[in-house]
């Protein structure tokens, strides 16, 4: 029942893990002839410095951060770094795109909390910075939200294999999919306790996890979060939107869109019940 081992070779890569935004950001940079390994250290430092700045700016755990002061009304948008306006715009946009199910204002006290979007946004920006620096083949994994670019590291496939963690069973995967130049976000109720709130302020419980594949990590994250908040009809909703998505409900049943099934490399299709 394990995902297969192949006889493939793996391209050399530089791996770095940075703890920031309350989670682990792991960078896999594939080193090619045109990208000396020393450059990887330099760009990784720049990228992680920026991530720490974004963390300080948008952390809701620090009462004195820009986001805390902004959401208490102590600072105007103009008094915040320009990224704040961008984040507010994104939250507005995804609130509309997800029929209101992605809601940065839905927490218990209705304070503006864009945490759901900041991590994905930061990971995507990190990926862009890496690409601009010439590292066009890489993977950024922000605590389970994944952005990959370019050819994967394995000689067996041009794509990157992304395992999806099982929402209920620790140390188990429920699927492995292939992606290239795309992002994968998984939102789950087990991740941090109930961190997804419905519009009436109650936690969402019908789904155990939702995974969305998209070109844009913020988009994927917002829709995965919205699907989880939405509950039972989420898979139909995602299907109608034409999203490649995978949902595990609270009973352990799995639902995949056709596009997601096409990407799946494990378990084999013959094992579908």
């Amino acid at each position: 029942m394990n995902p297969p081992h192949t006889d493939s070779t793996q391209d050399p890569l530089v791996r770095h893990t940075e703890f920031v935004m309350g989670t682990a950001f792991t960078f896999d940079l594939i080193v090619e002839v045109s990208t000396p390994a020393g450059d990887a250290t330099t760009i990784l430092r720049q990228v992680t410095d920026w991530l720490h700045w974004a963390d300080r700016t948008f952390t809701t755990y620090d009462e004195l951060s820009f986001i805390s002061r902004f959401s208490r009304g102590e600072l105007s948008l103009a008094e915040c770094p320009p990224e704040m306006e961008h984040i507010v715009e994104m939250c507005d946009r995804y609130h509309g795109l997800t029929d209101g199910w992605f809601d940065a204002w839905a927490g218990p006290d209705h304070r503006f909390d864009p945490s759901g979007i900041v991590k994905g946004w930061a990971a995507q920006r990190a990926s862009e910075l890496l690409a601009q620096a010439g590292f066009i083949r890489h993977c950024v994994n922000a605590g389970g939200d994944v952005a990959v670019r370019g050819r994967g590291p394995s000689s067996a496939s041009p794509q990157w294999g992304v395992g999806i963690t099982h929402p209920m069973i620790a140390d188990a995967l429920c699927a492995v999919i292939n992606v290239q130049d795309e992002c994968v976000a998984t939102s789950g109720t087990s991740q941090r306790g109930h961190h997804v709130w419905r519009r009436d302020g109650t936690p969402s419980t019908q789904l155990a996890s939702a995974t969305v594949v998209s070109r844009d990590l913020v988009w994927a994250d917002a829709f995965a979060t919205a699907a989880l908040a939405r509950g039972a009809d989420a898979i139909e909703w995602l299907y109608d939107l034409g999203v490649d998505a995978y949902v595990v409900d609270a009973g352990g049943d799995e639902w995949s869109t056709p596009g997601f099934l096409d990407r799946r490399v494990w378990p084999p299709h013959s094992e579908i019940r």
Partner: protein
Amino acid sequence: MRRVIATLVVTAVALIAVLSYRSPKVRLTGTQTLSNTTTSQSPVRSRVTTTAPESVTTSSVPVTTPPSRIAYFSGPPIKAVQPGDAWVFGVVEVEIETRASRIIDVEATTLPPTGDTGGPGTRPTTTSISNYAAPILRSEALRAQGDSIATVSGATYTSDAFRQSLLAALRASSRQRQ
């Protein structure tokens, strides 16, 4: 301008013990103890050993019906550091830096596991990675299930361990400020 800069660095260590493979539950047990604090001069360094309480990573989703497909390890993900049925996945260490009463930096570092890693499911790279942590080990262990897996999407226990360590560090720091 004379500035009194009090730098306080608190280290919290969260040990994450996970039940042996084939067990569907994650168990984090133990107690939290604050060891001696160096009170001489700044930076003040104290060490908080946290083993996160059980509630931290216990899934809030009741596991009633077993899912249709479960992928298990083909072997232990890493060598057991503790005897018995618990696998130690790693250690998360959090450092916070404060100036006056303000946190100016939060950083997590990690400790390498005790001894060598090994076991059928372990990738050769694991011994060469110096900054270990529970999530990475978990992610590594999951990736090691097949070489078709480059990375892992979805829940990691990072946040829990990190937050737990951070809270312990904050508590220690507020105690030191008094």
